[in-house]
């Protein structure tokens, strides 16, 4: 530790010295010295590297597909389509939009459901109640974990964490009726006062 500090300081003072030697030598051209295109190769900013690395290692469940509407070089905004192969939502097609922040993975991506769905944990505006998207996000989690989590919501809807209060109540009290409501909504129709466009 001690040695490292001494080294650090000597490098620092060499740097300072060189800075002022150059000042004296170059006088008013200091700024020109520092802004000359000397470091041409290395000086472009690189953002979202860890996110892109994440994407290149995606291992999606077979019910999920990913789409990049802005082409191969914008991986910060994308869509994930889930086609559940079992459970209440079998046969439905659900699209989620992902917006990845620049400081990912320090902060979770913003995820919204673009398909209007009758679901206890997804409200009619597309907000999703999934713990790892908000309160339980950790930088060790990744896009794959979120997609698995979303996929899980369709096979195991949870009436104990309701975001759509009515749907959650029906699922809790009367699963048979919940099932028929889900079928009706996915086929395109009304559940109560709310219309759901077809998504099958």
């Amino acid at each position, binding site marked *: *530790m001690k040695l490292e*500090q001494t080294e*650090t*300081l*000597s*490098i*620092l*003072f*060499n*740097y*300072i*010295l*060189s*800075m*002022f030697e150059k*000042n*004296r030598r170059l006088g008013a051209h*200091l*700024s020109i010295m*520092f*802004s*000359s295109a000397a*470091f*041409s*190769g*290395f*000086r*472009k*900013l*690189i953002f979202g*590297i*860890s996110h*892109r690395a994440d*994407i290149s*290692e*995606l291992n*999606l469940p077979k019910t999920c*597909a990913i789409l*990049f509407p802005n082409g*191969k*070089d914008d991986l910060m905004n994308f869509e994930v389509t889930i086609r559940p192969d079992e459970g209440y939502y079998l046969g439905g097609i659900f699209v989620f939009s992902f917006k990845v*922040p*620049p*400081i990912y993975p*320090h*902060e979770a991506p913003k995820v919204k459901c673009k398909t209007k769905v009758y679901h206890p*944990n997804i*409200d*009619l*505006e597309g*907000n*999703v*109640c999934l*713990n790892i998207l*908000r*309160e339980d*996000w*950790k930088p060790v989690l990744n896009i794959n974990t979120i997609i698995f989590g979303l996929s899980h919501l369709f096979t195991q809807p949870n009436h104990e*964490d309701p*975001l759509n209060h009515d749907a959650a109540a029906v699922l809790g009290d009367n699963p048979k009726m919940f099932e028929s409501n889900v079928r009706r909504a996915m086929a395109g129709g009304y559940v109560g006062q709310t219309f759901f466009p077809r998504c099958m």
Partner: protein
Amino acid sequence: MADAAALVSSRWRDLDKLLLRPGNLVGQNFEPGPELRDDLQEYAKVLVVGAGGLGCELLKDLALSGFRNLDVIDMDRIEVSNLNRQFLFRLQDVGKPKAEVAAKRVMERVTSVNIVPHFCRIEDKDLEFYNDFNIIALGLDSIEARSYINSVACSFLEYDSEDNPCEDTIKPMVDGGTEGFKGHARVILPGITPCFECTIWLFPPQVKFPLCTLAETPRTAAHCIEYAHLIKWDEVHSGKAFDPDDSEHMQWVYAEAVKRADLFGIPGVTYSLTQGVVKNIIPAIASTNAIISAACALETLKIATGCSKTLSNYLTYNGLEGLHTKVTEFVKDKDCLVCGPGVLLELDTSITLQEFITLLEEHPKLLLSKASVLHRKKNLYMQAPPILEEMTRSNLSLPLFDLIGQVSKDVVHVNGMTNKNGKKTSSLRKLRVIFKGIDGVSDMDTAGGA
């Protein structure tokens, strides 16, 4: 005449005590003398990022410490709520750009200092702008902005062939931050001390309430406010984005939060709490800002003149229960993707992307299989998902040299699988690629290049 001269000399009396005399705590290359003070005043250029609570203090402190060439950048306009601590601003300044008013006020009070204000986002300036400064002092309030400036400063850093940082390319940063009674000051010398990204894990995760709690079982005033902000707003204003700087939007959220709180019998929703929760405002205390800024200004002076050892490298100040300060020497992440040297690879200009990927597999320092290759904002080759693999597959047969724009050297990031203790793990690495036989390659001196 003599009086004027006496005034000028007394003006820098305190600074001269630091710069004109030798000392025990200075570095071996410290050369005291009036030239050092003159050089500081004439040549040292410092950028202050942020003209808020810390920025106002920093500008004043740096100007009074003898710095004469200062720039300040801030995208915000002055608000009434700033006036309790951002002491350069007056009531009649409300609505004006912070950077411009701050620069003007300090120049009015401190003779011979020149402060250039920049009323814009930090992303609006190109890299040349930032490279013009000897030191960058940060008075910011977000991780994003710090991370951005850090990556800018680290982008100037170059390493020699032995992976030692080239001194001329080190862009020192001094970072301050406060939150109520707490604060930190740190010195970042990219390549020498840990950069912001090396220690980003120091930040606690932001507190976020579960949406279902907001929707179903609110228990606090903040829950009611976040309900109005995150759920009710979208329900009522379909498609219209919420703007935290629009006071009508904020009033609406406040009114809805009050309704919600009444419904559940929850006390404590106020307009200022609404602003605090929605805009994630942290309470600011003027004296904490003053303490942290003073530390930052002094470190800036020490870096510029060498008059004393610098903080090594992270000071925390906590005035919450009694007073605690501590300096911790954090260590660099040698594999940091932002400030680390990466692995140096010398390549032929003819190597194709496919051959390059094969090379990564065999390279003793990498042994990276199934690599994806990222260059700046472009994805040269992606192993997955299939849709991106297909879109990037045609690059495999092209020369890497052409794909990265025919430059003699550049940084490329690769990620793939490595074998660690018999276990396959994923690994993301930074590479410095240099092409043989292209001008300027062997010449690391800053005078080279195109």
